[in-house]
């Protein structure tokens, strides 16, 4: 089941995975671009804060972003090799879609992303309050003792 699910999610993946992101001749998935951006953003932050190694990266990803967890993890594993993120855990918080309902005068969480209708009163609303996040929330740096631990 898990394998079938992965296959379905890896919609744009070539028979053999690309060794280099954006490499010529390879079909690459957009999650690879996202993973590359994560590594670049985190590495940039590390340089500003005096270096170190990363224990975990916390992300918030909205359901409207079309970014899927399995291909993102797969891509992250490819692009972090040889970087300070090599041993980092990727933590992904999925953010549901929230709309503003003008009738209820309240924010309402949608159960899915196929109908932008208030689940309480049925009013249509395209006023999206969350669900498009593609955010790097925080970076956890490994302490020295962590690095030395087996």
């Amino acid at each position, binding site marked *: 089941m898990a394998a079938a699910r992965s296959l379905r999610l890896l*919609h*744009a993946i*070539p028979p053999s995975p690309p060794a280099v992101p*954006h*490499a*010529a*001749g*390879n*079909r*690459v*998935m*957009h999650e690879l*671009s*996202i993973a590359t*951006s*994560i590594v*670049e*953003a985190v590495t940039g*932050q590390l340089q500003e*804060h005096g270096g*170190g190694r990363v*224990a*975990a990266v916390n*992300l918030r990803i909205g*359901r*409207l*972003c*079309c*970014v899927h967890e399995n291909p993102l993890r797969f891509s992250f594993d490819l692009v972090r090799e040889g970087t300070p993120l090599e041993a980092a855990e990727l933590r992904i918080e999925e953010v549901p879609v929230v709309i503003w309902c003008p009738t209820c005068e309240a924010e309402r969480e949608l159960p899915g*992303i*196929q*109908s*932008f*209708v208030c689940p309480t009163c049925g009013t*249509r*609303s*395209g006023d*999206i309050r969350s669900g*498009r996040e*593609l*955010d*790097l*929330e*925080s*970076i*956890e*740096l*490994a*302490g*020295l*003792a*962590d690095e030395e*631990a087996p």
Partner: protein
Amino acid sequence: MKTTPRILEVRTRILKKNDEIARAMRRDFERLGLLVVNIVSSPGTGKTAFLKETLARLAARGEPSAAVVGDLETDNDARRLAESGVPVRQINTHGLCHLEAEMVAEHLAGWDLAGLRYLFIENVGNLVCPTSWDLGESLRVALLSVTEGEDKPLKYPGLFNTADVAVITKIDLAEACEFDRDLARANLEAIRPGMRILETSAKTGHGLEAWLGELAGRRARLTAG
């Protein structure tokens, strides 16, 4: 002995670099009074035919326009578009499934955009991957052909939700495909309430004047605001 990890609160967009390039380009485009349109659809929806007809009609009206075309491997689309007589540049993505702001910026470098009124960016044919990449456009248009089925917006809600306008293409084939236009419109409305929906045929010209009117209106608002 374990130490407590140091936490850096970052709170930034993962695609911050792309967003910054896109924002800078949009500022430049708007200053020039240039309406930039990002066209997205599945492969085979008829983006190139639709765009070629659009460019030819704009040229006939004396409205200077240009196009950049994203394609995985070939320059077929760029060559087809160049037949309309307007400047066209090709972005070959070498397999990458979407365009990014940096690629557009690179391909616009050295191109004198002053005097142009419209610039069209034909994205790679894909209804998933281009969703989160801002290309500096002022208008995002999602195309849907009658041959693809009415439920396409429900299958790709993320992308259709980011579009400002939906264009239903190949409407001349609607009857042959038993295309239910009310259902298609209802599905688009469910995904993006209030979305502007146009029906067109690049072959018969149906709806293209309305589309050009839509473009002119959007550009007028851009230059006014």
